[in-house]
């Protein structure tokens, strides 16, 4: 502030008041910073930093959405993996049964019994293929609104889902396919032709229960079942690598989120140590100003002249 000598009394009081007020408001500002933990009380305190903070806040909101998306994708893929594991154990059991049935020592009625079990397992496979995901949609039906497979009157299964499973955004422009469609792993190459696991299981069960030619049919089905098992485990590997991809993205997102938090503190957070030191400094100056003001205000010639 300005210093002018030979000033008038009113000017002296006015100037002292001005200085004391300025110091007081400075102290109050620092106090507000400390109690709110925010350096910026309003955008105009630092427009550039405020704009940056808004962008960071926006990224945070979208990050929260990405987190739920990741969770959803993880759930769906884990469900897919579980269903497939069950399928592999069923196919393994089918292989055992087919091997038994292929043996010439078994009677036709014994084969018919095996055929019943095969038919039962096939029903399980169909219901597994129609598993629902976390949101109640067909897990292997792509984007189908209903089931993935439907059975006709004769019991033949046919795929009614869409051609591809939907993708889910993981943030940062990355996406992951949220599952597999039924045909992607239930339809495979065997013996130079494309076959369907549900179809060959049905054929096998029918052949075994019919009572004639069961052994040959079981023998023929063995190779196809082996290929089917392969197809499922291969698909499981794909699912596993997708889960890995999600983990990678989660790591990336966590790192980014940490970075954002750091930047937020740097841009908009109040440094407590600095604020306290500044407040101490201001208070010291304020006290000194008050003390000197009261001393100066007492200085009057009238009290000296008698």
């Amino acid at each position, binding site marked *: 502030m300005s210093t002018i000598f030979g000033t008038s009394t009113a*000017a002296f009081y006015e100037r002292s008041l001005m200085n004391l007020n300025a110091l007081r408001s400075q102290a109050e500002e620092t106090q507000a910073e400390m109690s709110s933990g925010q350096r910026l009380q309003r955008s*105009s305190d630092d427009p550039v930093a405020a704009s940056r903070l*808004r962008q960071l806040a926006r990224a945070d909101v*979208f990050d929260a*959405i990405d987190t739920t998306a990741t969770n959803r994708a993880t759930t769906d893929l884990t469900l897919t993996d579980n269903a497939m594991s069950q399928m592999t154990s069923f196919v393994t059991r089918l292989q055992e049964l087919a091997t038994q049935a292929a043996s010439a020592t078994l009677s036709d009625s014994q084969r018919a019994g095996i055929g019943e079990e095969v038919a039962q397992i096939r029903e399980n496979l169909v219901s597994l293929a129609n598993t629902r995901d976390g949101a109640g949609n067909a897990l292997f039906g792509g984007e189908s609104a209903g089931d993935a497979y439907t059975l006709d009157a004769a019991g033949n299964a046919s795929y009614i889902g869409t051609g591809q499973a939907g993708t889910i955004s993981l943030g940062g422009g990355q996406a992951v396919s949220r599952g597999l469609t039924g045909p992607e792993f239930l339809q495979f190459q065997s013996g130079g032709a494309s076959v369907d696991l549900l179809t060959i299981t049905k054929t096998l069960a029918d052949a075994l229960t019919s009572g004639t030619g069961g052994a040959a049919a079981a023998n023929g089905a063995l190779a196809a079942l082996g290929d089917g098992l392969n197809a499922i485990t291969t698909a499981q590997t794909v699912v596993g690598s997708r889960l890995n991809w999600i983990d990678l993205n989660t790591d990336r997102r966590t790192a980014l989120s940490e970075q954002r938090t750091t930047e937020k503190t740097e841009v908009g957070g109040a440094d407590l140590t600095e604020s306290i030191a500044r407040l101490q400094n201001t208070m010291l100056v304020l006290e000194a100003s008050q003390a000197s003001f009261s001393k100066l205000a007492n200085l009057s*010639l009238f009290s000296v002249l008698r």
Partner: protein
Amino acid sequence: MASDLLSIARSGVQAAKIGLDLTAQNIANASSTGYVRRSANFREVAQTGGANRIGDLSLSGVRLDGIVRNADAFRQAEVRRTGSDVARASAEVTALQNIESAIEQSGVFEAIIDFESSLQQLTQDPVDTSLRASVIEKARTMVGTFQIAGQEMDAAGEGMRFLAGDGVTQVNRIAQELARTNTRLARASDASSDQTALLDQRDTLLEQLSTYGNIATTFGTDGQVAVKIGGASGSDLVVGNSAASVSMATAADGTISFDVGGTPLTLAGGSMAGQQLALTKNAQLKADLDTLVDNMVTDVNAAQTGGDDLDGNSGTAIFSGNSMATLTLVATDGRKIATAPAGSAPRSRDASNLTAIRTALAGVDPAGTMDAILFDVSGTLAGRNVTLGALETIADTAKVALSAQSGVDLDQEAVNLVRFQQAFQASGKVMQVASDIFDTLLAIR
């Protein structure tokens, strides 16, 4: 004129009494607004001798020459000029703060982000009715915050116009008073206490006037002032004993303009200029926000009508309106969001039209535009705050400089009190000496 010790002493006593009176007056008015310190100018009363009588002593004491008003016209003009600037800047800053709060505190930016993110969340499962309901609720919040922002900005503008209107009233009142003061100044005799009081009043009025608008002044020899409002090239406001009248007009977008008796008035300083600037900024920001709303409504609705909703019906508009005030939410059911492409079956999980809606929204970039608008107002305000700080320092310095020169210093008055008291006592002593001399002469026998 014959010299006479007693009458010289009498004039000395009278002068000292005038000095004491003035000192007392100064002390009494030490904290009166607009009071300028008075001091007395004394002159010797003496006569040169006539022809052939050069050696004659002809001393007749002292007389009051005039009351001096210790006002510096330059410093006063500086106080008025800098005061005008501060009034303009502080009116603008106050108004901009209101506008900033209106836009920022209404939470429009956060609501836009929430709406955008709810649409993104819907991509995870487009047939989930709770996610759809969430989109509608976020849209409702966004519509509400836009309406609040619009109302708050209107209210801020209303407040500014009210203050500017009051400024016009005050300017007209002060102009009338100045004209009356001019009339009385023309009749007051020179260097009288009557004139000094009128001059004090004139300067106080000018200082008040300068806080409403920037003025240029011309002083006559008798102390009358001619005032032009809007600077040296502005219009005459007060000439002699006549005052012109200022009036204000409001445009459709809420901005204001002034005129003096029909002549357009451009103000560069004073609170009225600050309010005028802030209202222009308010209108610009409001237009920006209205454009954003209009674009968003048009593009989102266009994308929405290009698809099918959850029940397989073709999409209908979500929003209506083309400004913050008229923006309303038309779709109130989450099922109405057309996520599926046209011609899809009910409950279709195909989200390609949702992608189209999100692309349309991204094309408008409401969050980015809103950020830019917020940056615009806060950046302007931050800049004006710096200017205001600088102007305040300058104005304070000018004020202190003026009051240092024209204000009352009690210490100095204490000294004057002692000095005039001593002068009074000394003149009294002279009277006693005169009386002693007279007695001595009478005692000669």
